[in-house]
């Protein structure tokens, strides 16, 4: 029995296995947003299908669900029914806002007409708002509490469970 080999081997083996074990079960794509816990960057963007400009500040006092998406993004299609249904059932208690980037207004209007149009959708002309929010890809959804602070961020398509869980944080 070569004890040196045994000792060195076991130290390396255990260290590696323990570290890898603790790495299991987390999502490596997920990056903690530095914005969580901070005031949401303000914006005023034109709403799709009207000439109205919507300012984020006008919803202070109400939780806001801010969903970045685009018509060319397939996962966004998947989450659209969930978002629409939740927005309808939440009624006046929560404000849903869609922000579309890198897209054509006509395509957005067609999309919403066909698949349901439950809340204002805004056009992020040069992607400035997406940049301010550090959006890495679509869909990405931010949850704001009534003070306008970002309490949660989710990357990827929404499911009813995910919305519910994050909305609860925003309602607190």
């Amino acid at each position, binding site marked *: 029995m070569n004890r040196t080999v*045994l000792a060195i*081997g076991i130290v390396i083996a255990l260290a590696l296995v323990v*570290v890898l074990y603790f*790495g299991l079960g*987390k999502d*490596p*794509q997920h*990056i903690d947003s530095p914005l969580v816990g901070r005031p949401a960057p303000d914006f005023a963007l034109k709403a799709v299908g009207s000439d109205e400009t919507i300012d984020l500040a006008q919803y202070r006092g109400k939780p806001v669900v801010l969903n970045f998406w685009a018509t060319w*993004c397939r996962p966004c299609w998947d989450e659209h029914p969930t978002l629409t249904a939740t927005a309808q059932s939440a009624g006046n208690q929560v404000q849903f806002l869609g922000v579309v980037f890198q897209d054509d207004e006509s395509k957005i209007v067609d999309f919403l007409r066909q698949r349901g149009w439950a809340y204002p959708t805004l056009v992020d002309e040069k992607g400035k708002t997406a940049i301010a929010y550090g959006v890495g890809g679509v869909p990405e959804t931010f949850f704001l509490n009534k003070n306008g602070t970002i309490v949660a961020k989710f990357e990827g398509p929404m499911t009813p469970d995910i919305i519910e869980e994050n909305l609860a944080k925003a309602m607190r």
Partner: protein
Amino acid sequence: MNATLGRFLILGSLLVSTTGAVLGFAAGAKRSREGLKWTQRFAYAFAALMVVATAVMEKALITHDFSVSYVAQVGSLSTPLWVTIVSLWSSLEGSILFWGFVLGLYIAAATFLTRKDHEEYMAYSIATWLACASFFSFLIAGPASPFLSVAMPPTDGPGPNPLLQNHVLMIIHPPFLYLGYVGMTIPFGFATAALLRGRLGLAFLKPMRTALMLPWIFLTIAIMLGGWWAYEVLGWGGYWAWDPVENASLLPWLTATAALHSAVVMERRGVLKGWTVTLIQGSFLLTILGTFMTRSGVFNSVHSFTQSSIGPTILVFLAAVLLGSVALLATRIDSLEAEGRIDGAVSREGMFLLNNLLFVLFTFTVLIGTVFPLVVEALRGKQMSVGRPYFDSMVVPVGTALVFLLGVGPALPWGRASKEQVRRSLLPPLIGAALVGIIGYALGARNAWTLLTLVFGGYAAQVTLAEMWKPVVQRMKRGDSLVTATVQAQFKRGRRRFASYIIHAGAVIVIVAIAVSSTTRTQREVSLARGQSASIGAYTLTFLGTETRNEPNRVATIARVAVAKDGKQIEVVEPRMNQYATMREPIGTPAVHSTLAGDLYVSIMNLDGSGENAGLLLLITPMVSWIWIAVLLMGVGGVIAIIPTRSAVTVLEPQDSAAPAVAETAALT
């Protein structure tokens, strides 16, 4: 039907591999010849079942049988046939089946080639392979089964990962990587057998070395193809980002390269047996670690598979093999006695030791950098990433030292050398060193590490060429013609020596090309309106406008850019952004105008909606294509080294003259 048949075949392979493994270990312990025969039959049976199971999956893919879960997951009526065929390895479950297929082929081939030799080791070797095979059969049968039945088959599926469809390199990179990764199982089996037997005869070194060389060749090329793909697709102009999965492919390559070198010392001097075996065990373990990294969802990377449930299963296997190997090494390493010793540090073998030390240092540097973010997150709950600065500052000196050894190592004679001998071998290549250093400086290299690499590279190049030439001269002195001498010295008698110097030549070029391309590139970011031009180096680029093309599986936005060199139009390049329906982000594909001197690289940074303005990243990177070419040269060298010939017979022939014999045996490097 296909799903049921597939499940049946995989259960069969699980049964056959487990039984064969148990039988093989028992046969090894009892030294039973009959037991070995049966173990061999089980090995062939495993291979046959895997081949048929894979054929069933391919048939299901090609005939769009969406009642098979994997086909429902990656199949699509609209993808071209070649995409359908290669989608076998486009997603987790299929790629594990492909792994089983490759493993089956390797095991069958290795069993067949050793069927008459090395009887004392073979039962243990085959048993080890089949034990690994039973783990992968288990994965395919249970946690990662591609053959589940879909109760309500869809009429069409989403098609494979768009990245696979985006570039041809992405189709050939994975099979090469699997051939490299899976192939490490074979030398691992040999090494384990030597440990279990408590003996490692020099005759057994030959199959062990060949078994190591083959996956090494595949892995070498796979790493290069991965880098090339990143360069051609990812759009930032680099080919290596120290991404965890890139590191995962590099780690076993480093230890395997070290093992190939320590095997030479073992062959020449009868020492380093335990060390060589340890490196081989390590190489296999690192392939399993790499598999865990890509498939557990623990590491973030451009090519990790999405979250999967097989991470814990692979981790259990990794832990078991790791602890088993440590226990086996600890109990048996002392029985692999050294038959000789190493005299003198300033000798060929001394340089081999230094080479091994550097490769191991390199391995740990990369391994620590890769897992460190996990350590930090486990201990402090904070996210962090280890980036280029760490790796560059650690790896550049090691890489430079390796080029130094590529020159000095082969220049030094084996054994104890007199001062005079050392001087005679080490001084002449300084000419090559000075020459290349001066040329590099004249062409604009100013980075100290780059200049040092160029100087060492020039030194190594001269040594390599001189060592290739030496046996030819010796034969010509004996009256052979140049052609006969070359054929005899390089392809017949001294083939392995010749092959190793080809690999060295490739390695020198690769390291020099990496040093030059990463430190001397010119970069410009420009924003151009339609019709406007910008210049970089000798090139002038004019933005002609954008166009959108609807292709069957994607929408491509293309910027057309006219390229002129020294005022003469040479080409219109088309960097593009491909948007696939299933992806969150578009995949850019830069345009690369390649020449041997350097590449012009044009990548889209942004396009405005009107198509009138484009933000472009322009890069001129010298010598990039040399990396791809030189790695292929290394692969060619590896192939020359392992082509089976009747040379095993010639080695036993009595040597008719001392001079060439000296050069050729000296040459077993």
